[in-house]
């Protein structure tokens, strides 16, 4: 088992390296370099050349890649082109805001999704199962910004229960900051809940159709006992996998939600960076998001190795 996990970790590192290579390549090698995008296309050639010199763009790409990567590893993310300030400084607060948004969402969405999935797997084929199925299908099909706009319209404009724009004031109480973040959290929960519930349902139904469950049924074991003691432990591995994979959806959801609610998080910093073509900023934020995504996928793989007895006891 240890070998399997080590191999998976090594593969994760390689993936991370390839990702860093692609992030660097797609923002550096494509036409129009940083100097040109700062000064505009009409700037005189000498000015652009001087700017290239100053930014060190005259050095070959692999040298710059190495500088960038080694800086990244020690937490030096470079300097923002937009504001001229170190990116690490700009990211600091933003990163925590995003982590907070994502983790509160995960705490709410994961149990809810697993329960919905379990219920609809148990009641498979009934009206309840079909309504959950159609409901989650609709949730998957709706764009996140529609959910965001609708929730703002209902809860902030019509009912006036919740603020439309979240305020992140460090002095406010936990309750205050939770209510102010309620709408972004709800939107994000919608975005990840449906996939998770559907995949949990499929995982449990797969297990329920196996022979030992039929055996338990024929023995006369009670329904709930079958679910909790026979099916659930075996469905755990696929469910954990589903959860980790879907937490990765948070990365995508967060981009839309932060923009829709003007939430001061990392994703908005990145979207602003893309709009102003602040390339070092895009690289830094992109790497943080991609590294999170790759790590979550890696975590899913390792957990499913650990929860699968056949893989766990393998040498």
């Amino acid at each position, binding site marked *: 088992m240890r070998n399997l996990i080590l191999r998976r970790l090594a593969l994760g590192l390689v993936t991370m390296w390839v990702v860093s290579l692609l992030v660097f390549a797609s923002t550096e090698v494509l036409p129009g370099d940083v100097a040109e995008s700062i000064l505009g296309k009409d700037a005189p050639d000498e000015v652009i050349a001087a700017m290239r010199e100053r930014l060190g763009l005259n050095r070959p790409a692999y040298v710059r890649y190495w500088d960038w990567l080694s800086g990244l590893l020690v937490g030096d993310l470079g300097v923002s082109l937009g504001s001229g300030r170190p990116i690490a400084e700009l990211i600091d607060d933003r990163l925590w805001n995003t982590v907070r948004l994502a983790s509160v969402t995960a705490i709410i969405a994961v149990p809810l999704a697993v329960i919905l999935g379990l219920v609809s797997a148990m009641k498979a084929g009934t009206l309840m199962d079909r309504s959950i199925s159609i409901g989650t299908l609709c949730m998957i099909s709706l*764009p996140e*910004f529609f959910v965001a706009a*609708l929730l703002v319209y209902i809860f902030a*404009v019509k009912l006036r229960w919740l603020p439309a724009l979240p305020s992140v004031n460090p002095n406010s109480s936990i309750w205050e900051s939770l209510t102010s973040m309620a709408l972004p959290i709800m939107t994000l929960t919608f975005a990840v809940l449906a996939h998770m519930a559907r995949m949990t349902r499929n995982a449990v139904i797969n297990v329920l159709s196996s022979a030992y469950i039929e055996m338990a049924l024929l023995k006369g074991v009670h329904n709930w006992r079958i679910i909790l003691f026979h099916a659930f432990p075996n469905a755990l591995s696929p469910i954990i996998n589903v959860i980790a994979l879907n937490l990765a959806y948070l990365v995508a959801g967060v*981009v*839309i939600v932060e923009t829709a609610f003007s939430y001061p998080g990392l994703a908005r910093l990145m*979207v602003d960076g893309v709009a102003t073509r602040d390339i070092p900023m895009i690289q830094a934020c992109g790497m943080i*998001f991609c590294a999170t995504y790759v790590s979550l996928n890696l975590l899913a793989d390792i957990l499913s190795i650990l929860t699968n007895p056949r893989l766990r006891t393998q040498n």
Partner: protein
Amino acid sequence: MTASPEGSKETSERDNLRPTPTAWIAIFIIVFWVLVAVFAPILAPFSHSEMISFESFAVVEESAFLGTDYLGRDVLSRIIFGARMTLGLALIATIISFTTGIVLGFVAAISPGWVDQVLSRTVDAIMAFPSIMLALIIIGGVGTSLPVVILTVALIDATRVFRLSRALALDASVMDYVSVARARGEDVGWIMLHEILPNTMTPLAAEFGIRYTFAILFISSLSFLGLGVQPPVADWGVMVKENLQGLLFGAPAALLPAACIGTISVAVNLLVDWFLHRSSTMIPEELMG
């Protein structure tokens, strides 16, 4: 793909082919939007950029019944023209991703090992990115324009189509009819077109629907972020972005275009669901997710 007696297969297929009520609703919605998109210039009372009133977010005399947007343009006309943009762009992106994805997937499946390795590992690398991040990074690097947006979405979609069509072609390529064709001396292109493609059509058709909704959602999300279609062009994602601040004054201007995206993507998903259900025997289970 299971061999069954001709007669029983025909009757069961005829039963299964009949769309369920949900499928009918889905078909109706899709046909409706296609007609709207095709006949947009005839249907729309105004052009997409004409300012018909100085009043924002108001149902004024001149406007059609949905009122005006933040610049005093007619919301109904913009939704009608938006259908063209949103559905058309997504269709172009999906067609590009399908042709490249299927061709490369089939090539990978029946070519010597190293070709498959190169293609598959490249696709793995692209899929290691969350799709929205890949799009942001590419657009950040090259700047945004319609071709860039379409090609980015097509690239992201093509990786998924590649995986599916490669797996399907691998399944099909060990079938007797492929061996027979090879023994006959048919070349690789002929086998792909005449033997493998017809036998992988059903799951690929379902995948087309899934990828199409993905493209619609993705392009409008990019537009919503301000990185896709640029104003003043009417696109449903752009319309939501433009009018979001006016939610308090004129909800329809922001909510309706978003709801339109919802209807078309729910409809396509329901249709795909029905389609997969009816032909579930033909699709390997691991590909259904």
